[in-house]
């Protein structure tokens, strides 16, 4: 088990009494993990400076209002539908979704609707049987083997025949999508999977039903729900356990940690694609880290006379915690070896198993 991140936060008062609760604050490690969850990358230097030890509520409010939050949302949706690699959308309609969502011109339900109408969704799921099956499974969370009749009706509609599907009438492929997105099943399934993604746990059925009703009535409440899912005890619960990072989050974190910036799409995609090609990506993580470190483009702060201080700062940045005493002693000792470069330490750090978790 990895050590808990160091925390300088003050907890809200939980006892009954008159003392007003102090706001929940995010330590460096907690901030890193919340950013990885919601932005798909660690905080950049200026964000770290602004948000470390800031009120969790204020940080979350700013995060879910950012364009980067919706970029990450889109990334997650495309992954969920496996619209990646050769099936990744190229059209403006999907690519400008983060701008429209951040500007409040569109809500999450409308955005999912647009994704499912994109040509790439059709290419990814060719033919009536595959398309309708995927719509039922992925948009509505239905099991087709238990809803064979609905599947057949959807296939008829897909082929252009008048039919009723998921409680509505239609006669085209786009009607199949429209009816699915408008269904109660969609709201329930969307909220269940988004809650699981953000809070890293399954929702309780009663809570889920209430959230789904709110979302069905007003889909623009989705960012508010995200903030609720990461507040109070839910936030503590989320931060109590580390989770493996996705390969794309790991590759973004590698760039932020070593280059001080996010990767461009051209830099990220080949890395992500290669990492995804292995069930255990560890061997390629080493290659990626060496590419950046040996390529001479990494932004590396040289250690001064106080190596221990340098190690502490890097551990806080990359792992969000102070080094353990034995760890600190071992690393400082290794740094004194003739063959050890600063790059060697950073390589060991960013390719550690702990750095692949959030």
């Amino acid at each position: 088990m990895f050590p808990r991140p160091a925390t300088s936060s003050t907890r809200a008062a939980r006892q009954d009494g008159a003392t007003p609760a102090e706001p929940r604050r995010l330590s460096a490690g907690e901030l890193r993990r919340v950013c990885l969850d919601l932005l798909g990358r660690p905080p950049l230097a200026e964000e770290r400076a602004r948000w470390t030890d800031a009120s969790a509520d204020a940080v979350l409010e700013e995060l879910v209002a950012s364009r980067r939050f919706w970029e990450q949302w889109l990334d997650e949706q495309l992954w969920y539908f496996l619209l990646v690699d050769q099936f990744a959308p190229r059209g403006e309609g999907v690519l400008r979704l983060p701008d429209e969502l951040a500007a409040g011109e569109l809500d999450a339900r409308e955005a999912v609707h647009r994704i499912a109408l994109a040509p790439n969704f059709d290419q990814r799921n060719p033919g009536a049987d595959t398309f309708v099956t995927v719509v039922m499974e992925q948009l509505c969370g239905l099991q087709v083997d238990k809803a064979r009749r609905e599947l057949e009706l959807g296939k008829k509609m897909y082929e252009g025949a008048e039919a009723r599907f998921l409680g509505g009438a239609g006669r085209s492929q786009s009607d199949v999508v429209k009816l699915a997105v408008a269904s109660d099943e969609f709201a329930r399934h969307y909220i269940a999977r988004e809650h699981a993604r953000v809070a890293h746990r399954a929702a309780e059925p009663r809570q889920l039903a209430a959230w789904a009703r709110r979302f069905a009535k007003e889909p623009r409440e989705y960012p508010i729900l995200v903030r609720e899912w990461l507040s109070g005890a839910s936030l503590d619960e989320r931060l109590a356990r580390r989770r493996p990072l996705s390969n794309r989050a790991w590759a973004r974190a590698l760039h932020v940690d070593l280059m001080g910036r996010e990767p461009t799409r051209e830099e990220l995609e080949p890395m992500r694609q290669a990492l995804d090609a292995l069930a255990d990506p560890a061997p390629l993580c080493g290659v990626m880290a060496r590419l950046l470190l040996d390529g001479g483009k990494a932004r590396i702060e040289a250690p001064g006379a106080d190596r221990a201080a340098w190690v502490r700062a890097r551990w806080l940045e990359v792992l969000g915690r102070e080094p353990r005493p034995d760890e600190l002693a071992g690393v400082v000792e290794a740094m004194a070896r003739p063959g050890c470069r600063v790059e060697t330490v950073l390589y060991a750090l960013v390719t550690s198993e702990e750095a692949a978790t959030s």
Partner: protein
Amino acid sequence: MMDELERTTQARAARVQAARAALDRRALLQGAVAGAGFFAGAAWLGGAARAAQSVAAGGTPQAAAKRRVVLVAFAGGVRTKETFGKPENIPNLKRIADSGVLYTRARSANLGHYGAALSIFNGVAEQRGIRENSRGDQPTVFELARKELGLPASEAWITTAGGAQQVNYSHSLHPDYGARYGATTLDGDGVFNREFKGLLEKHGRPREWPQGEKDALAALRRSISGGGAEAERRIAASERVEQWILSELGRGTAELTGANAADAKALRLARNLVALFKPTLTAVVLQEADMAHGNYGGYVEVVRRNDAAIGELWTAIQSDPELAATTTLVVVPEFGRDRDLNSRRGLDHGDGSDDLHYVTCLCAGPGLRRGLVVKEEVAVVDVAATTCDLVGAKGRGGRKLPQLRA
């Protein structure tokens, strides 16, 4: 483009043909020496290759007693009509079938590509979401064989063509098995593509670290991980695969193009892995045939090209005496396709016809019957138990393909 391995394989095939009649231990040693020479730069090889080198050096020929399986999931939805129903499309599979056993009525379940292909590896036909990106619950043949036979990670590989989802075939979520017994899994098109190669060229290939730096790195890793034999083993295995990937990038796999490029890469990698590591279990999952939804002609072309690539894989196996004496090849689609063309003049998979539900399964290798056609109904999922049996593992039981052994 003929790569170095192809040239070596062909040269080796010529040598072996000449000597086949008088194949004895001496010939086996010569073959092993040739292999060890070709891969002299890969001193970090896994257990199987080390065993072969040990034989060459006069050690115990354990590798010769080993039984191996190469399992090709000819997935993407492939009908018998375009394969054994039209032999001119598949001259290589036909040639292999003539020396093996052909099951012409292998029943499959229409579970979507993912669920159906997964059932080949775990022997359980259960409904999975078409785009479900998570692992199965039942242990795969890799986990069963590795756990029961005590095989290291280098003894089970799977190469795939269908992107991130197929990486899930490596292992299950079963608490008694899982990642520690999984196959080393590689999606060929994900790593061996021009974009990744371009990235390496842009940044420059990682330089070789001097020994002093490697020692420092080992010390750093011990400090960070807290040490332990298991952590050291994982790191060492990871470094071996890292080296293999970097060397494989120089062998032309990234340059493969054409209708079946992703399948061709998966088959090429499997061929190289079989020749290099000589693993107990090597699996390949193809996918490109699914272009049939909108392009019937392209689908037939994929079938033809994949037949040629499987032929090369078979030739590579037969041209190595040790592999030829120990390796069974199994080729099976996960399901077929519809009986009739759709409105786009393509072939979907969802009509419930026999063309969809029955496929042809091929097994060929030492100790198996030759030229036998079995017309009784079998199941595609029987391949899992059969594979375990072929490598000498009991697995979890289950029905095996009948009339297989000579």
